[in-house]
C-alpha cells in the first residue's frame, strides 16, 4: 500500500488517555483485553485469532448493536513495543492503519491514521461505516478500559455507603496519603485513638494490619486487603475487624455487621483540589448484612433518620407539653438602616465586611453544622467557597470558611434543583414547613441561613426562624429587597446583644421569644 501523503483518503483519530503507555499498549495487543473495548459504542467482539507480530493475522467478528455481524481480517505489518502498531485491514474497505503511542507527562497520546486504498474505499468507510465517529468511540472505549473505574462505576447496590470530600491538595498528594505507609499512619484510625500500622503492603492482594487504642482501653485490630489499584485514580480494599494475628472476627457492636466490607476510594481532580469519594458495601453479604447496609444507605439518602427524629421530637414535645431541645434556625443578614438587604436590582455592593466582622461572626458560625440557602445565594456560594482556599494568598477567613463550607451540611430551598445530587447538599422543593420542622428535630447543631432573602421570607411566614444576627450598615437604600416580609402575625423578639463595630456596622443579635405558645409544631401543611 502507498505510504505517501493521502489527505483526501485518510482518517486520523486521536485521544490523550490518562494511563501509562505500557498499559495502553498492552490493552491494544492482548486479545482478551481487545475484545472488551474494540469497536464503536454498543459493539461486542468475537476474536478468532490475534497473532500480534509482523505477518500475524487478526481475525474477528464485530457484533453491532442492531445484531449485524461484521467480519474483519487484519494482517499486522509492524510492531514496535510500546510505540507503534501498523496493520492492513485486508477485508473491505481496505486500509492501512498506523497506531502510535506517545508518552505525554504520564499520559499516553494514541493516534490512529487510517489510509484507505483509494477514494472509493475511503468514501465507503466514511459514509457506510461512519468510520470517523466509530474511531472516536473506539478510542473512548479504550480510554474507559485502561483509565479504570470512574466515579460512577462502582454500583450503588453493591456499595450503598457513600461519602465525599473535597481536599485542597493535588490528587497525587491525596493518593500518596493512602498509598505511603509513613503518611497513612499519620491520619488513619478513629479520632481520639492511638493508631499503629503494624504491616502495610500497598499492592493488589497486599495487606495492611493496624491497631488502635483509646486512652485507658485495650487495643483493637483491623485489616485491609487491597484489590484493584489504579494509581491516583482509585483504590479498592476489603476491610475487616481482626484479632491480634490479623484473622477476621465479628464486630462487637452488631451480629450483622459484615465480616468484610469492600470500600472503593476514587480520586478526581477539581481545579487545584481533589474530590475523594468513598463507597462501601458488604462482601458476599448474608441477607441480614445486606439489609443492614441498604438501611444505612437509605438512612443517609432519604434522611429517614431526620424524618423520624422529627416525629420523635414532636411526640416527646406533645407528651411533655413542651418542645425538647430543638436545633435553632439562625438568620445572618446584612441590612441597611432602613431595612433593605439588597437594592432594587439586587445590588449588594454597599455591604461592608472586614476581618472584625468575620472574627465576630466566625465564632458563632462554627456552632452551626448546617447551612440553609436560597438557590440564588447558594449558587453564588457554590461558585466561590469550595475553592476559595486554593486562590493565591487566601486570607485566614477564606481558608477557614472554605473549609467550613465544604464540610457543612447544605440545605438549599429550590424547586428547580430538587433531585440534583451534590456533596453534603440536600434540595428542598416542596413541603417547606414540614421539611424544616424535620430538620430542626434532627440531632445536630444549629442551622444557619446566610443571605437568601427569599428563603428567609418563606421561613418567616411560617415563623420558623429562632434567631437573627443582623449587621446594620450605616446607610439608607430607600428601596430594594426587604429584610422582613411575608410575616403572618406579630413575632416577639428578645435582644441578646448589640455590638457596634469599628466600621460603623452594628450587629444586632435577637432571638425569637416563644414564651406564650408551643412553638413551631402544627404549622406543617
Amino acid at each position: 500500500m502507498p505510504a505517501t501523503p493521502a489527505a483526501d483518503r485518510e482518517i486520523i483519530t486521536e485521544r490523550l488517555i490518562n494511563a501509562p503507555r505500557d498499559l495502553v499498549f498492552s490493552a491494544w495487543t492482548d486479545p482478551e483485553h481487545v475484545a472488551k473495548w474494540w469497536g464503536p459504542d454498543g459493539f461486542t467482539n468475537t476474536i478468532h485469532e490475534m497473532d500480534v507480530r509482523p505477518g500475524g493475522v487478526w481475525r474477528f467478528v464485530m457484533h453491532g448493536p442492531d445484531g449485524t455481524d461484521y467480519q474483519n481480517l487484519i494482517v499486522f505489518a509492524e510492531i514496535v513495543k510500546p510505540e507503534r502498531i501498523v496493520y492492513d485491514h485486508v477485508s473491505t474497505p481496505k486500509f492501512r492503519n498506523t497506531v502510535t503511542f506517545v508518552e505525554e507527562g504520564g499520559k499516553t497520546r494514541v493516534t490512529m491514521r487510517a489510509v484507505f486504498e483509494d477514494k472509493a474505499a475511503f468514501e465507503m468507510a466514511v459514509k457506510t461505516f461512519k468510520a470517523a465517529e466509530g474511531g472516536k468511540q473506539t478510542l473512548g472505549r479504550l480510554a474507559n478500559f485502561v483509565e479504570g473505574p470512574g466515579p460512577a462505576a462502582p454500583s450503588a447496590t453493591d456499595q450503598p455507603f457513600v461519602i465525599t470530600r473535597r481536599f485542597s491538595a493535588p490528587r497525587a498528594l491525596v493518593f500518596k496519603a493512602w498509598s505511603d505507609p509513613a503518611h497513612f499512619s499519620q491520619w488513619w484510625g478513629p479520632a481520639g485513638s492511638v493508631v499503629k500500622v503494624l504491616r502495610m503492603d500497598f499492592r493488589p492482594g497486599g495487606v495492611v494490619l493496624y491497631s488502635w487504642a483509646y486512652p485507658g482501653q485495650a487495643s483493637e485490630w483491623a485489616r485491609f486487603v487491597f484489590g484493584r489499584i489504579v494509581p491516583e485514580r482509585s483504590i479498592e480494599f476489603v476491610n475487616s475487624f481482626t484479632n491480634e494475628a490479623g484473622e477476621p472476627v465479628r464486630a462487637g457492636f452488631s451480629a450483622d455487621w459484615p465480616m468484610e466490607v469492600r470500600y472503593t476510594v476514587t480520586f478526581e481532580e477539581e481545579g487545584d483540589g481533589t474530590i475523594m469519594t468513598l463507597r462501601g458495601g458488604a462482601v458476599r453479604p448474608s441477607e441480614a448484612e445486606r439489609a443492614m447496609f441498604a438501611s444505612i444507605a437509605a438512612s443517609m439518602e432519604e434522611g429517614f433518620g431526620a424524618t423520624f427524629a422529627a416525629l420523635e421530637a414532636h411526640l416527646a414535645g406533645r407528651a411533655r407539653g413542651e418542645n425538647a431541645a430543638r436545633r435553632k434556625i439562625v438568620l445572618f443578614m446584612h441590612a441597611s438602616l432602613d431595612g433593605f438587604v439588597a437594592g432594587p436590582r439586587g445590588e449588594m455592593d454597599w455591604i461592608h465586611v472586614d476581618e472584625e466582622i468575620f472574627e465576630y461572626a466566625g465564632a458563632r458560625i462554627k456552632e452551626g453544622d448546617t447551612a440553609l440557602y436560597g438557590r440564588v445565594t447558594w449558587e453564588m456560594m457554590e461558585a466561590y467557597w469550595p475553592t476559595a482556599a486554593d486562590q493565591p494568598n487566601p486570607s485566614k477567613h477564606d481558608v477557614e470558611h472554605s473549609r467550613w463550607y465544604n464540610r457543612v451540611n447544605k440545605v438549599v430551598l429550590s424547586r428547580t434543583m430538587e433531585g440534583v445530587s451534590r456533596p453534603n447538599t440536600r434540595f428542598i422543593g416542596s413541603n417547606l414547613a414540614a421539611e424544616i420542622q424535620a430538620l430542626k428535630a434532627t440531632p445536630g447543631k444549629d442551622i444557619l441561613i446566610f443571605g437568601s432573602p427569599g428563603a428567609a421570607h418563606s421561613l418567616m411566614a411560617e415563623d420558623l426562624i429562632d434567631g437573627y444576627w443582623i449587621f446594620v450598615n450605616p446607610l439608607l437604600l430607600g428601596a430594594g429587597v426587604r429584610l422582613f416580609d411575608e410575616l403572618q402575625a406579630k413575632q416577639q423578639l428578645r435582644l441578646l446583644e448589640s455590638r457596634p463595630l469599628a466600621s460603623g456596622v452594628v450587629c444586632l443579635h435577637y432571638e425569637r421569644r416563644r414564651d406564650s405558645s408551643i412553638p413551631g409544631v402544627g404549622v406543617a401543611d
Partner: protein
Amino acid sequence: MPADPLSTTFAALADPTRRAILSRLALGETSVAELAKPFDISAPAVTKHLKVLQRAGLITQTRQAQFRPCRINPKPLRDVAHWVEDYRQMWEQRLDRLEDYLQQLQAKQGRTKK
C-alpha cells in the same frame, strides 16, 4: 432472626415499602386500610409488612379501638439514626484528620521550597 435490636431494626428498614409505611405513620396514627392506599399491594401484604415493623418494635398497633390504628414507635429509629450518624461521623473525622494532615504536609513542602 438477628439477635441484637440494632440488626432487627436495620432488617426491618431495608425494605422500601416498610420505610414508606413509616413515613406515612410519621404524620400521625392511621388505620391499616388507610396505610395500604398509596401502595399497589393487597391489605394482607401490608399486614405482613406491619408485622415485621411490629416485631422490630418500630410500630405498635392499638388494641382498644375497633379499626386498630397503627402508631410509630420512635425509639428504635432514633437508635438506628444515631448509629448511622456515628458511622458517618467516624468517616468524617477520619477525613478531617486526612485534611489536616494534607495541609501540614503542604505547608511543610511550601517551606522547604523557599
